């Protein structure tokens, strides 16, 4: 019971941070808490949220995927090129295929070829980013397909389509992680891969699938970015992997593997979006925005690494409160001499 509470508190940490930041912004500016602005935050967050959702699977198995930004870039470009001659569905299928293939390759490098994921995905990032530049020849590729542009620009029920997509992904993949056998194997593999193998789990398969999920969600993020802009940029996605990893960590997923939840990641991504939005509303210099975000990330990781310390502080604060009324009534408490004599 106690540990369930702690676990929930841990997952809800991002919620608390989000509420506090929102409260500050609500007091600071009347522009923040309006329907259009909040939808705007969600829309701006959608790409990071998708990358972070995939990243969550990879980080829970105890690995890391630095290539999500580059996968976004190449699948956007490949899809845009395909759509110049092919119908919508084929374009989407090719884009998703590119993401899945990139994930498969990363997974094989990390498992069968025994490479550390940090280096393996650093390498594939360079390869994919280079390929994107090569196939686009460094030029943006325009997309005219109306159906495709709707992915980024339509507003069913007055909510931007990317927000619907993110919500659907969070629900589907959240259930996959929390409620299915595969999800259980993801946590098991990240907690203790050897014990998982000795319990009959095909650890390599689980790891490769986690990387493939990351790749597929990165390619969906690529669709959204390309559709919103109307063009596939040759350097799209560069650096986004860091925002995605930050969202995962802020959301309470442990870099050591075995712990975390998709909902936390989603809230972590929104928190980063709200901070961006707030800094803009408050007219903070764009040159300083990175500094603020950096501190938020450092603070979140600090909490993650020092949860014992924080629990201790919390306890100390708690024990201070009831003492205050008790201290004045010190005279003639019969227990005290007894306690003293016992020592």
């Amino acid at each position, binding site marked *: *019971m106690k540990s369930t509470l702690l676990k929930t508190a841990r997952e809800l940490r991002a919620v608390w941070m989000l509420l506090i930041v929102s409260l500050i912004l609500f007091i600071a500016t009347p522009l923040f808490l309006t329907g259009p602005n909040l939808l705007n935050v969600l829309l701006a967050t959608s790409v990071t949220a998708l990358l972070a959702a995939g990243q969550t699977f990879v980080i829970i198995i105890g690995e890391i995927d630095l290539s999500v930004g580059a996968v976004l870039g190449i699948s956007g470009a490949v899809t845009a090129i395909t759509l110049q001659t092919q119908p919508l569905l084929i374009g989407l299928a090719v884009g998703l295929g590119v993401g899945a293939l990139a994930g498969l390759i990363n997974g094989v490098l990390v498992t069968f070829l025994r490479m550390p994921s940090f280096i393996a995905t650093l390498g594939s990032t360079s390869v994919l980013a280079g390929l994107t530049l090569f196939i686009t020849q460094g030029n943006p590729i325009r997309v005219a397909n109306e159906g495709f542009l709707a992915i980024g620009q339509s507003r069913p029920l007055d909510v931007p389509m990317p927000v619907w997509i993110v919500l659907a992904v969070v629900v589907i993949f959240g259930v996959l992680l929390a409620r299915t056998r595969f999800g259980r194997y993801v946590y098991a593999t990240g907690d203790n891969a050897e014990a998982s193998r000795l319990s009959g789990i095909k650890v390599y398969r689980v790891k490769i699938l986690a990387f493939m999920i990351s790749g597929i969600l990165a390619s969906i993020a690529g669709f959204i970015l390309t559709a919103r802009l109307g063009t596939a940029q040759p350097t799209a996605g560069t650096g986004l992997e860091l925002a995605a990893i930050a969202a995962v960590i802020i959301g309470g997923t442990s870099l050591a593997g075995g712990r975390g939840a998709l909902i936390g990641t989603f809230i972590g991504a929104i928190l980063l979006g709200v901070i961006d939005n707030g800094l803009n509303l408050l007219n903070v210099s764009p040159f300083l925005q990175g500094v603020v975000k950096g501190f938020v990330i450092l603070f979140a990781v600090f909490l993650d690494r020092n949860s014992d310390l924080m629990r201790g502080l919390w306890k100390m604060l708690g024990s201070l409160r009831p003492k205050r009324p008790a201290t004045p009534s010190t005279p003639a408490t019969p227990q005290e001499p007894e306690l003293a004599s016992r020592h």
Partner: protein
Amino acid sequence: MKITLNDIHKSFGETAVLMGVTLEVHGGEVLALVGENGAGKSTLTRVISGAYRPDSGQILIDGVPVTLKQPQDAMAHGIRVIYQEFLQNIFPHLSVSENMFTLDEHGTFGRLFVGKKRMAKKATELMARIGLHVDPHALAETLSIGELQMLEIAKSMAHDTKLLILDEPTAALDEQESERLFAQIEAMRASGIAIIYISHRLEEVFRISDRIIVLRNGTVALEGPAATLTEREVVTAMVGKELDDFYPKESHGTEEVVLEMTSLSSGTHFHGVTLSVKAGEVLGIGGVMGCGKGSVLRSLFGLLPVTAGSISVKGKAVSIGSPQAAMNVGIAYITPDRQAEGLLLQQSVAHNISLASLDEMSPTGVIKLHQERTKTRSIMDALNVKAASPEVAVGTLSGGNQQKVLFGRWVMTAPRILLMEEPTRGVDIGAKAEIYRIINQQAALGVAIILVSSDLPELVAMSDRVAVMRHGHVVAELTGDDLTQNRVLEYALESAA
């Protein structure tokens, strides 16, 4: 140099490991220390080397009481230990001479820059003294195990050793390397060094020691000169009289053979093992460390390749190449190290128990949580797993309860064959009794059980039949009146013909 231990006591929590040990060792003498696993040899070693402080009792060096607060204190008195796990003290990527002088307190080879030539010269000199001829510039990882052990001895020579403790020194050595070691021990004895020699191999013990001390349950059970003691006396003293009623053994053996191994071999791990287990029967496998008893289980579970021979389950030949394949024919394996290769410490008790049975609870891939909850509950009740709730992380439980969770995982798969290795390692007496009860329950259900254990009383009491292994071969199968601790030890140790 004379070291005297006077009435040494040492407990860990509620477990008393040393209960009044008194012994003495002189310079120029080889004292052999023998005893079963858990008799207190390692703890005693660590007390002498300053790694543990005794709860009570005195250590005297040449009649003067000393306090050894840390290993450095013991080293200052010239006490050195070469542990069985000495490889942990080797830096594989440093050279031989650098390994030898890692601790250069006085800056003999320079304070800021190290004089590598001088160091190599000194190392060569010391190694030559014990007959070890290797390049001092070679990286330690290029040496053989035997050479590394000699290097450890040479290292101790560099520090004016007066008492050298050798813990199972020949466990990793071949015949020739062992011979060299014995010659070296002889030379050290002649030069006036005191030596405490710990070994399971009685033949060696009788050959090189002057005096033998047998430890049992933390006390000295027998002490005498090697020349007048017999092997039988030593073995009997090691075993002692056991409290038989601690083991609630029930016999459920039937005539139906469930698992058969025929001339099974796996590389260098074991050779030509032919054994069978019947439904409801507990087959014990005993033997000293490294005899191959654990490897047999690992190959049955698809973790070591079978290089010759065959396995059949219920009369049907099977090939087992992976844990999944083993599980498909109804084999479960409880690993010896529950933390490293058993449990998922951050995950909940319930998730740990259901881990190997998720297939049947999730026909569509989505886990039926209600079914999972009911099943894990009933397993927790049946095995008496004590946890605040099924949701707490396994890492927060006591060792005994962690072990019961691991049993729970495999009991839930309803195996036909249950392999277990060191099932009661590091658990308290109460949990031990409960684990024996689980073994009985499973046997009563007709599960064929193989119990590999280094705990001799447990092995003998809980098995219907015991196969003894030595050097990768089964050397005896004991049942009925033949199944005694003495007989198992005699076959397990080198000495038995």
